[in-house]
């Protein structure tokens, strides 16, 4: 009786621990948000010194602030359409607002005929423009930038 009593409690707590273990292994793996571990970040910084190629797109202002998307060479569609890479929920953004695409090693932003325009560092984007690292791209109320 005493043994089963304690045994069941132990098993119950083992379940909790097992669940927490899964949660822990999951934290950095498949969470959608990429939260780099401190160790990984150090490595990434070192690598970034060598190459200045942008590696991720970061939303710095607006409703989606904090979102990061890794750049893997495919073009990034930004707009309110559901199939955009970055789906904006913003009254000032158009359905298909802008596109970021890679030519060689550089990323270019182009406006897809949006109503309110796309701005790269205060300049209105009328033709495809090269996006330097860290310069803000403003789309409606959202500001994004490329980071290495």
């Amino acid at each position: 009786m005493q043994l089963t009593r304690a045994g069941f409690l132990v098993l119950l707590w083992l379940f909790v621990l097992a669940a927490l273990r899964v949660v822990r292994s999951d934290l950095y793996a498949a969470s959608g948000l990429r939260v780099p571990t401190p160790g990984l970040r150090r490595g990434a910084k070192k690598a970034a010194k060598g190459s200045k190629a942008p590696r991720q797109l970061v939303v710095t202002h607006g409703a989606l602030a904090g979102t990061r998307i890794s750049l893997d060479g495919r073009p990034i569609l930004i707009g309110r359409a559901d199939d955009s890479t970055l789906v904006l929920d913003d009254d000032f953004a158009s359905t298909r607002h802008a596109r970021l695409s890679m030519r060689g090693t550089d990323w270019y932003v182009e406006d897809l005929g949006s109503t309110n325009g796309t701005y790269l560092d205060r300049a209105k984007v009328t033709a495809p423009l090269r996006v330097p690292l860290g310069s803000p791209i403003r789309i409606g109320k959202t500001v994004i930038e490329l980071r290495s």
Partner: protein
Amino acid sequence: MGSPVTGAEGAPLAAASSTSPGLKPPTRRSTELVLLAFAAGLVTIALILVDANQEKELTIQILWLGLSFLGVLTVAHLAVRRWAPYADPVILPCVALLNGLGLVMIHRIDLAMADVALPGGQPWSDAAPKQVLWTAIALVLFCASLKVLSDHRTLAKYGYTFGFLGLVALVLPGVLPSFIAPEINGAKIWLAFGAFSIQPGEFAKILLMVFFAAFLVSKRDLFTTAGRRVLGLDLPRARDLGPLVAAWAVGVSIMVLQKDLGSSLLFFGIVLVLLYVATERAAWVVLGVVMFSIGAVVAWQLFGHVKIRVQNWLDPFEDARDAGYQILQSLFGLGTGGLFGAGLGGGRPDQIPEANTDFITAVIGEELGFVGLSAVLLIYTVLAMRGLRAALSVRDTFGKLLGGGLAFAVAFQIFIIVGGVTKLIPMTGITAPFLSKGGSSLLANYILVALLLRISDAARGPKSTPKPRPQQPAIADQFTVMVERPK
């Protein structure tokens, strides 16, 4: 509802967020299956312990019960594997364990009550078989909602419809005559159809959450307009307070008309949290809490049933034989349990009134002790945490709000009931999700979990591809084509 379209969109490809192209995020479904088997094993052991300690004959039948529980869970698991392959692997096992523990405890209370001669000589009708039936129905509903709802964003389109339905469901028992909406234990929240009764409020909770999430997504800017700044808080403008006042009025009227303090608190809490999540402004929470406190104090002064609850909370010994009886028995039960509990099947749940609904956490506390009860509460915490995690990482605002609201609802509900049982806050009749007896609560909470899994599937799955769009040349380069000749 647009399932072929979203099916095409959901075609697997390299996640934009993963560093190496071509790598699909792990589904972790096998982890889920292992955890589910663990949960089913725990539930079977619990059942064996209960029957052994109650000196019932142990037959091979128990193993069959355990296996069929595992079988039912496997069906749910396969449904998840089929329709939400990237969903969170921890949510379903947690739910399964809570539900299974609930079933075992309800069975255990049946055993205890069968020995007690009820006043009036009626035999105790077993609640466990009924609850097993409800569990089966709930799991069917769970699989159905996963299948039907292939994208949680479709819900946003029906926001106002859901809001209307939810409001109707919420107030219906309060306004209907008592032959169809009887007053049971002082609360008028049931609709009775012959033998079985449902609590529409449980479903209203989810419907209203969908509505509020959809509403806030489209009208979010309204709520962020700054008003005056008082004591470091950006107070909203008076004219923007309308929705909050409306929610407050609904919450208070539930408290007064249906005499259901728990639902009122839950409803208003959900509204506040959604507002806070949408605007990130503490002013809404402060305002809401102040408004609710004023409403609660006024209700306490004016209405007898509220007064009794508060009195029982402040000093249950004042009327220990009558009004304070429930809460006192629950406290004695928890005290008897102590740190490690009396062991499954070793307590006296027949001493606790309403043991298999409102006070089921007291029974668990008595038999599993503080250690066991805190494990159960931790499982709820994990459940809510994974829900919030899914809400954090999903990409669309509606999903964020809905997921946050759903996860919060589970946590808040368990806070209200356990807070009541342990006399932290006034006791209010509300079910412990998945544990308590009650079909409506089980059905509604399984739908809630299906929604959470759907959202976490969207959050963790590969990003949907942009539809392959034929590259159109600029309009100036296109050939002019006569579409229709003007007549």
